[in-house]
Structure formats: structure tokens, C-alpha cells
């Protein structure tokens, strides 16, 4: 086989590619939402909960940030059934991606939260806001706005990292690529195409995040750099 590229050999596999793309997109959308929601809870509890809860959550964040995603995935998919907890591949992928994004985002959010001045929270209470209201409007939303760019990048990193879930036989984009190249032996063309799709996904994700951010954080534009 000479160094020629032949992308036409990929044509019969359009349905596999679309199936893989759908899985990757759904996985990403769902885990971005669940991951960020969990991150808010973790960030809140790491500041306000009982010491042993804080300690436990700190352990979770540090372990997640200091081990490879693929090992976390293998541990959940292969390791947990050893304890009697049996889960299918796609569920394992959801759990691993959510836990991974949440650990990093909680740490990012914590930096944003700690930048809130104490007096502001007291001012909110003085204005008659409930604890939850003042926490939401004074601490959480501004903190989110402050660290939003970092959260975008982290969500994209998790999306790109999701290529690894193909290793536990989740039919995502990378799995589709592996499947196709095992049939037509055109590995380079397949992977080149898939890489381009990931690049477009990353670009699209950044754009949509920024559009959402513009609307949600509109009234805080003045405060941001």
C-alpha cells in the first residue's frame, strides 16, 4: 500500500460514523450538565459541610485529578462488578465522565467562590434574601461567571477525553473509527476524518458555551475583565 489517501472507501460506513457521532454528542451533552451540577454541589459542600464530608470530597477531587481517566473508567467498568455492582458500558462511561468533569470543575469553581467578598453575602442577608437566595445570586452565579472560560475548556477536555470510552466498547466516534478500519484497512483516512470531527465538535462546543454565557451572564459583563 503506497502513501495515497482514499476517502471514498469511507462512504459505505456513513451510518456507523453517524451512530458514533450521536453517542459522543449525547454523552458529552449529558455529562457536561450532570458534571457541572455535581461540581456546584461539591464546591458548596467543600466549603460549608461537616469536616468529614469536606475531607472525603477533598479525597475524591484529588484522586480524580491525579489519576488517568482511562484508569478511572476501567476501575468503574471492570473493578466495581467485583464488588457486586454491575453496570453496562455506556453507564460506566456516563459515571466516569461525570465524576471526572465534576472533580476538576469543583476545584475551578472553588477558586471563583473564594473570590467573593464576605461582606457581599452579609449585605444580601441584610436586604432580606434567604440563605439560599443570597448564596445563589451573590456567590454562585458571579463565581460561575468569573471562572466560565476555565469551565468551557475543562468541558472540552472531557469531551476529547471521551475518545477513551471506545476501549470499554461504547460505540462512540472512536469506536466507529476502529470498527471501520478493521473492515476497510484504511486506518489513516478514518482517523484523520474522525480527528477533524472532534476538532469541529470542540469548536462548536466553545461557540455554544459562549453564546449561552452571553445570555446567562449578561448583567455581569461590567464586572468581568
Amino acid at each position, binding site marked *: 500500500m503506497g502513501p495515497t489517501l482514499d476517502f471514498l472507501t469511507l462512504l459505505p460506513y456513513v451510518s456507523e460514523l453517524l451512530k458514533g457521532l450521536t453517542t459522543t454528542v449525547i454523552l458529552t451533552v449529558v455529562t457536561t450538565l450532570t458534571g457541572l451540577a455535581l461540581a456546584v454541589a461539591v464546591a458548596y459542600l467543600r466549603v460549608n459541610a461537616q469536616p468529614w464530608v469536606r475531607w472525603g470530597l477533598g479525597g475524591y477531587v484529588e484522586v480524580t485529578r*491525579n489519576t488517568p481517566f482511562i484508569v478511572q473508567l476501567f476501575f468503574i467498568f471492570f*473493578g466495581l462488578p467485583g464488588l457486586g455492582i454491575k453496570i453496562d458500558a455506556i453507564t460506566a462511561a456516563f459515571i466516569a465522565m461525570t465524576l471526572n468533569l465534576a472533580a476538576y470543575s469543583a476545584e475551578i469553581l472553588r477558586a471563583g467562590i473564594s473570590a467573593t467578598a464576605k461582606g457581599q453575602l452579609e449585605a444580601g442577608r441584610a436586604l432580606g434574601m434567604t440563605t439560599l437566595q443570597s448564596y445563589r445570586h451573590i456567590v454562585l452565579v458571579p463565581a460561575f461567571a468569573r471562572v466560565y472560560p476555565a469551565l468551557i475548556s475543562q468541558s472540552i477536555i472531557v469531551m476529547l477525553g471521551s475518545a477513551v470510552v471506545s476501549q470499554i466498547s461504547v460505540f462512540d466516534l472512536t469506536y466507529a473509527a476502529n470498527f471501520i478500519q478493521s473492515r476497510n484497512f484504511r486506518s489513516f483516512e478514518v482517523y484523520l476524518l474522525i*480527528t477533524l470531527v472532534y476538532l469541529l465538535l470542540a469548536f462548536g462546543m466553545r461557540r455554544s458555551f459562549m453564546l449561552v454565557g452571553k445570555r446567562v451572564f449578561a448583567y455581569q459583563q461590567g464586572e468581568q475583565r
Partner: protein
Amino acid sequence: MIEFTFWDILRNLLLATRWTIVLSLIAFVGGATVGLLLTFMRLSSNRWLQRLTSLYVDLFQGTPLLMQLFLIFFGAAAMGHPISAWLAASIALTLFTSAFLCDIWRGCLEAVAKGQWHAARVLGMNYFQTMRHVILPQALRLSIPPTVGFSVQVIKGTALASIIGFVELTKAGTMLNNATFEPFTIFALVALLYFALCYPLSCYARYLEKKLYDAGLR
């Protein structure tokens, strides 16, 4: 069938950890060298060189490391020059690392106040003198914490080399799992070993960051 005791498993994993460390070092040293070159290309006054470097950084930051590995590993074979998993992993991780380090270092150089450039020029220093005596020493201090922090990402990145068949810590884990069917113990140990490699670096990066912060540089 050979029986594996807990100590056999641990010994085998520890032996494989050597290759994780070696690959991490290759990727980090190689990545730093290429990254330094890229940083200076990015800072040059040639607009095309700047654009080319940004494109390089965007490409590597916007695609999965796994795809970069596959493209190099299978690409070389498709071009008629098959390479080993060792070489493919070293090249892919070096390029990946260089893109991220270039981005980090450019940020550090730009973080040194613009006024200092002007001040140095007014003092009669040329570009290289300004770089050498004014900008670089400050940027270097700023760059150490995030660089140490990124080394953790490099170590974790080497785990993907297992997928193309390079026997490092993760691959050793899956192989041992296939032989012993004790996934819980094995992957917990694998995670623990990665943690033992990465956590001290994370703590050191945080300590350096705090030191800079306390010195009023951040």
C-alpha cells in the same frame, strides 16, 4: 496456570511503572524543547510564523490525544514506514506536550507588563537584551508552577499509550487482569500508583503557586 499472589501483582505493576516514568520523561523533555522553539516562533514578528504556531497549538488542544497517537502510529504504517508503539507514543506525547507548554509559556511572557518592554527600549536595550535581562527572568518565575502542574497531565497522558500496545502501567494492569480476574484490586493499585506519581507534583505546583502569590507576583 500460574497463580498470582498480591505481591506478584504489585511487583509486576511496579516494574511497569518504570516505563510510565521513562515515557513521561521523554515526553516532558521532548515537549519542553519543541515547546520552547514554538514559544519563540509565536513571539516572532513574522505574522505567518505566529499564525502557524497558533494553528499548531489549536490543533493539538482541540483533538483527542488518542487520535494523535492513532494518526502517528497508523499513519506511519500507512506511509510504508511502520514504527514501534514506543516511538509512536514518544512522538505523539512530545507534540501534545509541546503545544500545551507553548500556550502556557506564551501566557507567562505576555503576563510581564508591557511597560517593561518600553522601559528597556528607552534604556537602550535591544530585543535580545530586553528578553535576556528583563522579560525572561520574570516570565521564568511565573512559568514554573503551571509547568510543574502540567507535568501531571503528561504522566496521565502516557496511560493512553497502552491502547496502541505499549506496556506501561495501565497496559500491565489490563494484562494482569486478564490473567488473574481481580479487576478491583488491580485497577485500584494502578490508580494508587498513578496517584503516588502525580499527587506530589500537584502539591509542589500548588506550593510554588502560593509562593508566587505571596510574593505579590500574581
